[in-house]
């Protein structure tokens, strides 16, 4: 034993005798995780969160979250002697007079976009592979909470500099608050401490942005990861992979090295973007005053769909009992997002109710093998994309020489037509892919080699696929529809007939599958194979 080993061993022994860490570490450092690129999307979110914490802390050193009036006297000449809020002035100061300040601001903003983008990509991966199923419903709920808080946190973040664009965003947020029937104006007065814009909103959202929400993120992310740890990571189906094992590599050293390296890469990409690409050039927007607005004022992308929904809503308003209800804001700004996010949160429970599947799942689904879910996902995505595109309708109009009215009408119609269409098309594609899988298993791979048989017939030679691949393609369990039982064993009609009928119909739609190839079918064909 060398000198070094003796010292390290001594220290380790000292710690272990007092904490009992060795056993725990030994167990957990060997923990096995499956390997797939799509499992790293959540990692990107985690690492960008760390980058956000670090760069955000840097920014707080100089940011002054105050709406007190100041006269700018910094080094950006085009705003010299302009009256503005201290928040805006200090953001200009960070951008132009703090060493590395602009880089840090841009890293912070790019990391925020990357944070939201990777959360959404991670969410889509979890949804389309069915990773939210039992026992992971709680973690899905936490994830939905994280994406919702992420949207709020991002919005608050780009509202802080008090430039013309962020003020416009706050104005719209105020309008959405006011659209809540009856209590809306009171809530808005409470949030702004009086009439818009007031002097308290930015100090308040600053506290929420740097203290409350990051704290909530830390707590939720910790639980999110602890649950992944405790429930173990899901894995894609394949030979040797079952519901009872995890096939992969140990945390130490493989994932320690990979995760550390990947963190460096995420940091690198964010820093690269911050260094070469401008984001939110607040000095060009100018300070916020309610009398000004810029053409093409858009929110960041994760709010863009909300903006698109508001932009496409017709001017509906009713006046009743001395109250105005602005349906044009209420429906796209609160009701539709409410339905979307509630539906997303409840989806694991809805699917389990429809399919009657109460088993634990640790093997992921291939999206094609669950056509209904995949089609629902495509439908929701289409809805979001139509909204998002309409959120940028003015830029699309100018850059592609179109009429903004046409785009708005296309979105208004498309928001109703395209999602169902996407559902049907996706479901058909999934079923076709299932049939293709079945063909592949039963008849093998098309080699493209044509052979002339002695009697003159041409046939294409098919090559059997590997047993591993055949296993992967056939091992999934196909859902079975719940039968609609109207009477119990004694011939007494069951209660809730309508709900049960609806459930069984949804269940049979959910169970629509191309029959998977079975072993007996394969053997039968092998026996008499051409």
């Amino acid at each position, binding site marked *: 034993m060398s000198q070094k080993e003796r010292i390290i061993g001594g220290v380790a022994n000292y710690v272990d005798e007092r904490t009992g860490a060795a056993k725990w570490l030994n167990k957990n450092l060997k923990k096995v995780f499956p*390997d*797939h*690129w*799509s499992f*790293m*999307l959540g990692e*990107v979110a985690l690492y960008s969160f760390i980058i956000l914490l670090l760069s955000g802390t840097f920014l707080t050193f100089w940011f002054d979250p105050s709406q007190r009036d100041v006269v700018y006297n910094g080094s950006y*000449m*085009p*705003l*010299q002697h*302009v009256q503005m809020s201290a928040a805006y002035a200090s953001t200009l100061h960070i*951008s*132009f007079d703090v060493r590395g300040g*602009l880089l840090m601001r841009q890293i912070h*903003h*790019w990391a925020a*976009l*990357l944070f939201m*983008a*990777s959360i959404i990509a991670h969410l889509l991966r979890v949804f389309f592979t069915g990773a939210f199923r039992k026992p992971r419903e709680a973690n899905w709920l936490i994830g939905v909470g994280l994406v919702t808080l992420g949207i709020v946190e991002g919005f608050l973040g780009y509202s802080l500099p008090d430039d*013309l*664009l962020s003020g416009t965003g706050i104005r719209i947020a105020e309008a959405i608050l006011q659209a809540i029937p009856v209590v809306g104006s009171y809530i808005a007065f409470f949030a702004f401490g009086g009439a818009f814009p007031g002097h308290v909103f930015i100090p308040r959202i600053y506290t929420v942005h740097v203290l409350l929400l990051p704290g909530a993120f830390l707590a939720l992310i910790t639980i999110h990861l602890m649950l992944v740890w405790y429930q173990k990571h899901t894995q894609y189906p394949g030979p040797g992979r079952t519901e009872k094992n995890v096939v992969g*590599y140990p945390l130490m050293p493989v994932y320690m090295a*990979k995760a550390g*390296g*990947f963190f460096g*890469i995420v940091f690198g*990409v*964010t820093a690269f*973007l911050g*260094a*070469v*690409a*401008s*984001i*939110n*050039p607040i000095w*060009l*927007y*100018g300070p916020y005053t309610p009398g*000004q*607005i*810029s*053409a*093409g004022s*858009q*929110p960041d*992308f994760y709010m*863009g769909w909300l903006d698109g929904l508001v932009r496409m809503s017709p001017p509906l308003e009713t006046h009743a009992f001395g109250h105005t209800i602005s349906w044009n804001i209420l429906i796209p700004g609160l009701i539709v997002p409410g339905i979307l996010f509630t539906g997303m949160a409840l989806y694991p429970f809805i699917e389990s109710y429809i399919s009657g599947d109460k088993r634990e799942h640790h093997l992921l689904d291939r999206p094609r093998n669950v056509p209904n879910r995949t089609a629902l996902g495509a439908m929701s995505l289409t809805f979001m994309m139509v909204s998002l595109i309409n*959120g*940028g309708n*003015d*830029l699309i*109009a*100018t850059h592609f*020489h179109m*009429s*903004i*009215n046409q785009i708005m009408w296309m979105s208004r119609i498309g928001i109703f037509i395209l999602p169902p269409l996407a559902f049907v098309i996706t479901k058909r594609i999934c079923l076709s892919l299932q049939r293709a899988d079945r063909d592949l298993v039963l008849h093998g791979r098309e080699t493209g080699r044509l052979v002339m048989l002695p009697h003159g017939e041409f046939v294409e030679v098919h090559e059997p696929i590997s047993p591993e691949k055949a296993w992967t393609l056939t091992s999934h369990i196909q859902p079975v529809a719940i039968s609609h039982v109207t009477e119990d064993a004694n011939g007494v009609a069951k209660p809730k007939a309508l709900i049960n009928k609806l459930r069984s119909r949804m269940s049979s739609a959910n169970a629509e599958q191309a029959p998977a190839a079975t072993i007996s079918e394969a053997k039968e064909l092998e026996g008499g194979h051409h």
Partner: protein
Amino acid sequence: MTPFARASKYRRHKFAGPVLVVAALITMGSAFSIASALPSATKMSAAATTTQIAEGKKIFASGCSSCHGLNAEGSSIAPALIGVGAASVDFQVGTGRMPMADMSQQAERKPPKYNAAETAALAAYVASLAPGPSAVDGANLNYERDGNTAQGGELFRTNCAMCHNFAAQGGALSQGKYAPTLMGVEPKYIYEAMITGPQSMPIFSDKTITPAEKLSIIKWIKAAQNEPALGGATTGRVGPVTEGLLAWLLGLGSLIGIAVWLATKAR
């Protein structure tokens, strides 16, 4: 001894008479020459204008009258040009908007069809129909000296940004119309646009925005145009849409690419 007394001392000098005559002649002569020079200059330019107007009328008849009418009285597809003034013609023709390439929602900026002399002739002809704002001489717009960038920025954000975007990159209006980008537009055309209100643009009279303030706006637009890309590539200065695209395509795109590579490496 008072000056008058001193002068009176020479009153009876032998040269007093001739000196007075010469002085009177010089005074009369120069007064006459100044007085005669002014109208003669006017007459000369009037003569030039007459030919210019005739020239302009000819160009108008061949290039503009099919839509605007033989006497600029307008038609169902184009407005009357009586009273729009030389500034309007100078702007519309000088920036290539007129004659229009096609009957689209809005005349777009393109290389001008007529040269400076022809444009001036057209402007003179239209101005001769009825008084209107006269064309602006770019050389007289000393916005660099007389303008104030910060004030111009404030005015721009209050009056212009709602259509032309915060960085003068242009924006969409209803039914396919748009506020064009102001990047690379000659100062005199920006000025003329403000005083004539072309197409969907309102007129900003000298009461709304004083000439000095107009120069400040121009100075700010030029400062925005010439501002180096302070934070790196600008992605068009159109706000978060292009930033979001970049975050997804370059940011997450490259990270997914690396993730795929890392997952492959481990096998």
